[in-house]
């Protein structure tokens, strides 16, 4: 068990809906920006402005005029309670301000007070409240305990998405100089260096060379991990964690082997060395666009024909749903392929075409299950059909391993739980929130382990992988039980000229 400064919830057979207990998470506050440049680099005031009260209301007014979602969602809620038991953060913390509607109401009560007839003249009647310093701090604390996973939006009869409210609230906070250190520092790094981890070009190059050497040592095959290669067919944009964090890097090895076997030339880019786009987490269209434009610029500079995104959840949302808006049109790319493509779509196509020689038994030491990453599940698609985002990764996994089972159906697909670390919460100062938020997924995993003999859980999101690596030990599980989907692909993929034990016979890969 990892040591913790808070009570780690014990996993039960089911996740019961708790009775509310006010204020249990009020003390959890992620670090506020202390270096002004982490705000100013993003176009925000360096520290909390003096007239924050008026400026916050001004921003709220501005945003509800620019985002229909915000205006409609603030108006339409009837307090039916449908969402109240749907958030992973509420289920284990019992804090009613972690119920989706409770979280929304922190902003809604202020909206009502200043911008609606009923709230101006009958505030008590409709639950409208003044914007005070306490409310502002509540915004900061609780809007940074939302992973913007959209689970609540599935169950809302009006489709109210708390993620939209959280993003708006965070944008208001940023606009008055009350930004979160974790998100803003990272975005500043992307603007300056090109990726979330702040890895400079030579460091990436170094890592990739190391991977190439490993490939030669292990398989006797020169599998390339190209960087900044002009004229390549495909630009791969992948989360920077893939460059050196476990199990992410095993996924990167998998992508490299797939490209190698497909015989499709590819490259990564030092300037677009990050798939993630934290601009979305803070709700800032401008920052999100600035981060997204790097991908367009890299594609133009390298003269590629296709863009493929690596395994990353929120990144895939920005890529799939927003990239065309933010940085399009992509009319300079090959129109025969969707822009962008997910690496799972790419691999799935190759598997269907029979272009990969796969030995499923290479993964026989594992019984696998799959964690649907929240933003992939509820904000994107893969392939042509609705729900392809559930089928395609599973098809890939099933094509490369013999033992696969799903977790309980209420915890997968569109009903999947967030890993607990998404949306700008993957920071150690939010460990209590993260561990609590992981409880529903950990419960489902533990049940699958006990009932179906599951040993490993695969995921296609850098945040999920990092989060689970960190929280699995809190629940008595092993950190390496979380694996990358393309790690499995990499394991099973037999390279064409691969040296095999005992014989040097060349394997044919056409069916």
């Amino acid at each position, binding site marked *: 068990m990892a040591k913790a400064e808070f009570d780690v919830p014990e996993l039960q057979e089911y996740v019961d809906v708790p009775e509310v207990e006010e204020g249990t998470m009020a003390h959890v506050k992620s670090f506020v920006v202390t270096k002004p440049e982490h705000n100013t680099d993003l176009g925000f005031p360096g520290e909390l402005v003096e007239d924050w009260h008026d400026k916050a209301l001004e921003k709220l007014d501005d945003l509800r005029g620019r985002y229909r979602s915000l205006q*409609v969602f603030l108006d339409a*809620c009837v307090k039916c*309670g*449908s969402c109240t*038991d749907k958030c992973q953060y509420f289920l284990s913390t019992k804090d009613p301000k972690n119920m989706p509607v409770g979280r929304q109401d922190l902003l809604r009560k202020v909206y009502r007070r200043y911008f609606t007839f*009923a709230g101006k003249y009958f505030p008590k009647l*409709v639950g409208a409240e003044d914007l005070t310093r306490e409310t502002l701090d509540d915004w900061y604390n609780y809007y940074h305990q939302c992973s913007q996973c959209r689970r609540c939006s599935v169950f809302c009869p009006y489709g*109210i998405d708390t993620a939209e409210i959280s993003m708006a609230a965070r944008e208001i906070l940023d606009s008055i100089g009350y930004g979160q250190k974790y998100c803003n520092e990272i975005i500043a790094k992307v603007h300056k260096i090109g990726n979330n981890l702040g890895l400079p070009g030579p460091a990436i190059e170094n890592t990739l060379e190391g991977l190439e050497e490993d490939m030669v040592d292990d398989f006797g095959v020169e599998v390339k991990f190209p960087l900044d290669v002009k004229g390549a067919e495909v630009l791969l944009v992948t989360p920077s964690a893939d460059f050196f964090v476990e199990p992410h890097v095993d996924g990167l090895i998998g992508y490299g082997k797939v490209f190698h076997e497909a015989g499709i030339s590819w490259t990564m880019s030092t300037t677009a060395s990050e798939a993630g786009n934290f601009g979305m987490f803070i709700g800032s269209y401008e920052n999100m666009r600035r981060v997204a434009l790097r991908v367009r610029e890299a594609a133009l500079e390298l003269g590629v024909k296709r863009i493929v995104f690596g395994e990353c959840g929120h990144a895939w949302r920005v890529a799939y749903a927003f990239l065309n808006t933010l940085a399009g049109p992509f009319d300079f790319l090959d129109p025969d392929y969707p822009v962008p493509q997910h690496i799972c779509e790419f691999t799935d196509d190759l598997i269907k075409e029979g272009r990969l020689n796969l030995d499923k038994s290479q993964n026989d030491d594992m019984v696998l299950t799959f964690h649907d990453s929240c933003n992939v599940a509820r904000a994107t698609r893969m392939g042509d059909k609705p729900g392809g985002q559930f089928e395609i990764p599973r098809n890939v996994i099933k094509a490369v391993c013999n033992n696969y089972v799903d977790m309980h159906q209420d915890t997968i697909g569109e009903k999947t739980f967030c890993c607990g670390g998404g949306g700008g919460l993957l920071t150690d100062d939010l460990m209590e929130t993260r561990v609590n938020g992981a409880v529903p997924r950990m419960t489902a995993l533990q049940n699958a382990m006990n009932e179906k003999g599951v040993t490993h859980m695969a995921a296609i999101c850098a945040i999920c992988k990092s989060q689970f690596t960190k929280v699995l030990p809190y629940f008595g599980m092993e950190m390496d039980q979380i694996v990358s989907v393309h790690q499995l692909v990499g394991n099973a993929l037999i390279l064409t000229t691969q040296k095999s034990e005992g014989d040097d016979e060349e394997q044919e890969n056409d069916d």
Partner: protein
Amino acid sequence: MSFFFALLFILASLVFVVGLTLKIIQYAKTPVPLKIVTTPAPVTKSGVVLRMFREVVFFESLFKSTKWTWIFSWVFHMALLLVLIRHLRYFIEPDAVPAVVWTLIELVQPFGMYAGFGMVLGLVGLFLRRVLVDRVRYISAPSDYLMLLMLGFIGFSGLMMTFVVHTDIVAIKQFFTFNGGQLPADFPLIIHLSLVALLMLIFPFSKLLHVPGIFFSPTRNQVDNPREKRHIVPWAKALEEEQN
């Protein structure tokens, strides 16, 4: 009294129509800068129409969520719909509408009469849930209880007039069709009409905006085709041009 109610209903109708129209214009004019549909979602327009139909008629999302809330609110809303259709006969002359419409209104009469019970029953269920479930109690403001009580009393007073103390329906129809009728001074009727007027008055200023809101909800009404078709709104376009 008839004069007072005539004024009240003219005012209430004005507020209702103008207020709601302004809100709908506001929603329609506010841009949606990004594709934020909750997936899996339809990839065609007709698919979206079907999704919206299921949402509005069957409360699909609520059904996925909690069966108790779903059954109470679905019964209430459907009963309300029947009751509203039934009420059309108090405002419309048979020869003023196509025969089909009148036949429909006549057909609904017996169902509409009993639907009143469903309406009140649904409301009682919703009220109990609001009081008994601690999570729902936590999020409820006084207006949330009052809204249910108000609708409940509208239903109850209506049922009283239908089944217990009948009122002079012919006079009421003459009143509402501007044929000079005087409203009967019946207690249930006064309650009924006053609360209906109040409901119309607060409609554009309250959570009753969920009625137009659902149709404008981007997570439900967008087509899932961001890769196929570039989505861009004027303010985002302006930002793009300014920065390029």
